[in-house]
């Protein structure tokens, strides 16, 4: 049985549409053998029936599956170390190659491992493109004897930016961010001792990590961009806590910002039911 070279990224969107139409018509027909061709690539995650998965699972020993689970866990941990969100396609491409038919089971086990062993949650921040991040299930504690994220001043920088965006309604022109930072003696025009190239950290690194979005405002000349919260920030950062922090900063009751408080409270309740596999 020849193994084809798959191109995950390209086929995902196309096959999604095809799937919806033909899935119920010819599912059993197409899946009679577990001979996966390019079309079925993406379907592996969502549309294998449980009985098919069951049969596929019998092809692998428990040890083999455990080993695959371990590999995926390591893969995700390494990506997460750099705060790079993990694409489901990458997991398939780099790790689960021969085990495609039981992808869903492997990923379920992976999720369970993260929760049980590490106290982390694998959360889908982008349901369309299937992108995941690891967030912490344990509450952060202020006075740790050993710091959790040793020496990362960028967190403070990020927090300030997210606060400004949130307090100003969720979208702001980039100038507002640069001016705020300048007031804090962090000048995007100069090279900073701790952060280096500020502009690069904010518009490249934080964007890649999905903490902020930095998009061009159409029809602006010269080109202006605006900032929003990124998908990871939406999942990881508690708006309520952020508002509390701002309240302390200005010595005001968080509820005095009624709009923001309403939004923060809604976000808090929604996060109870976050998306997992």
């Amino acid at each position, binding site marked *: 049985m020849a193994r084809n070279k798959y191109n995950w990224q390209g086929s995902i969107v196309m096959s999604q549409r095809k799937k919806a139409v033909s899935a119920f018509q010819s599912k059993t027909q197409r899946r009679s053998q577990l001979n996966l061709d390019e079309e079925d690539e993406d379907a592996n995650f969502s549309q294998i029936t449980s009985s098919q998965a069951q049969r596929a699972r019998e092809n692998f020993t428990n040890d083999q599956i*455990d080993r695959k*689970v*371990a590999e995926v*866990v*390591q893969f995700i*941990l*390494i990506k997460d*170390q*750099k705060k790079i969100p993990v694409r489901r396609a990458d997991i398939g491409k780099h790790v689960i190659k021969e085990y495609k038919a039981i992808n869903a089971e492997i990923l379920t086990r992976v999720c369970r*491992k993260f929760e*049980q*062993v*590490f*106290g*982390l949650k694998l959360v889908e921040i982008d349901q369309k493109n299937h992108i995941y991040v690891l967030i*912490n*299930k*344990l509450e952060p*504690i202020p006075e*740790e*004897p*050993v*710091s*959790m*994220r*040793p020496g990362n001043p960028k967190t403070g920088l990020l927090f300030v930016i997210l606060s400004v965006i949130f307090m100003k309604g969720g979208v702001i022109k980039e100038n507002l961010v640069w001016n705020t930072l300048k007031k804090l003696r962090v000048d995007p025009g100069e090279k900073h001792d701790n952060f280096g190239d500020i502009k690069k950290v904010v518009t490249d690194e934080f964007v890649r990590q999905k903490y902020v979005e930095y998009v061009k405002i159409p029809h602006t000349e010269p080109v202006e961009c605006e900032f929003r919260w990124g998908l990871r920030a939406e999942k990881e950062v508690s708006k309520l806590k952020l508002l509390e922090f701002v309240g302390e900063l200005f010595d005001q009751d968080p509820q005095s910002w009624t709009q923001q408080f309403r939004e923060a409270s809604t976000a808090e309740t929604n996060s109870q039911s976050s998306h997992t596999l």
Partner: protein
Amino acid sequence: MSRQMGDSHRRFLQTMMSNGIISASKAVALHRHCCETHGAHYVADRLDEFINVINAQLQPLFMHIRKGMSEEDGLEYYALVNVTETDITRMASDYADNELELFRKTMDLIVDSERGFASSTDILNCADSLQTKKLKKKETELVLNKFVQDKWLNEKDGDYTLSVRCIVEMEQYMRTIYQDLIKVCHVCHNIALQCQTCENLTCGIKMHFPCVARYFRARSDPRCPECNEFWPHEIPEMQHSQSRSTQNLPSSSKENTAPTSSRRSRRL
């Protein structure tokens, strides 16, 4: 019956993950902090048991919290290591190919050296002859800084040696690569880079400085444990926390030391 994994264990593990390696004294403090934070039953001095619970869960993931000793200060450290690796793949995601090649070459120099150090001059020469892609002087200095910051190398007066984290993580890899070429401590049987050597040419056994301190403690006539020749080197002083007993050290031998009076002191 083994204890169940709880949030206290998870918090401990997460901290290990962020830090890569922590000293034994910090680990003790962290143990207490994690138990208190989550209201878990805390027993002082049972850190290794606590860690064993975590290790039981880490085993199927090919990870392990391993205890090791620093060659420099004799203190114990706990490091989170990958067990599957047959190479320095732990570093692979953080460095470019030529940087990894430089690291391997630096490791070669260090293992090869008498004193367990590689000079920056020698490293710069290697950088100039890399097979992947040469590194310029400035680039090499930046990479070396990064190695030090990421706790893979230690720097002293322009010379570089492997950090305790590096040795604990890569001991297996190094033994495989270097085989007989790598020195081993006669006392604790771990890799020895910074060590003293028996002057008897037919003997030549090595001992870590801290192991020498422990082995020859309060001996007026130090003799080589293997060939009984007089041990001519200066016997270093033992560090305070070094005197605590070292159970669970990988392949720790039956040590010929008299019990010390300060072993059970409670200072952190």
